[in-house]
């Protein structure tokens, strides 16, 4: 947990890594069906909203980036497929 948090902080504090992560997240969201919505807390967003939030790197955009990072880490560690 602490290692993950540290890694996330390292990536966000490095402008090059942060931009790379942002590009990955934007690509992921770009291929999302237009009809899907995402609920973040009490707010709801469509695909275009989400892209703007990610570009702005506001709270919602950062959360999307953190989630993508968590997903990539789980993918590389094998945690995602561990139950299969």
């Amino acid at each position, binding site marked *: 947990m602490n290692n993950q948090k540290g890694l996330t902080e390292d990536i966000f504090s490095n402008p090059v890594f942060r931009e790379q992560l942002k590009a990955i997240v934007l690509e992921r969201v770009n291929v999302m069906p237009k*009809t*899907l*919505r*995402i*609920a*973040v*807390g*009490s707010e*709801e967003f469509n695909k275009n909203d989400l892209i703007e939030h990610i570009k702005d790197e506001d709270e*919602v955009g950062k*959360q999307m980036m*953190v*989630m993508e990072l*968590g*997903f990539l880490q789980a993918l590389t560690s094998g945690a995602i497929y561990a139950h299969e």
Partner: protein
Amino acid sequence: MLVTRPDHEIVTKYCCIWSKDIIKLANQKSIAVYDLKGKKANRKKFESYTKSKNPSLIFFNGHGTTEIIKGYDNQPLMDGQSIPSKSIIYARSCDAAQSLGPTLIQKGLRAFIGYMRKFTFFYDPAFILKPVNDPIGKYPIL
């Protein structure tokens, strides 16, 4: 087990519907379930049930902040002033693990499982009247 599951708008409706499987599983295991669904997810009923039934597990579904967990119509259900029992809490609520969780632990709560960030999930608006059929809505991503 005490479950709170308000259903006053889309987010709570999804959490409410997708809690059914957990209730079903608890019933199969002969675990007593006190289900505060919809308007019953209010502070008066919640406090009454926690005092009279002393549940070992409290499973919250509903909006939250760093300081409170909400019920029907976003009315507060639990805050740092609440006197917790020796329960375990699992809160499917935003941010509550940041401050509320540690506060309750200091006051004697057995365990608090929650989220440090906003609870997030995708859904397909075509299924908002029947969330249980939404193939993507059942996967929380945080």
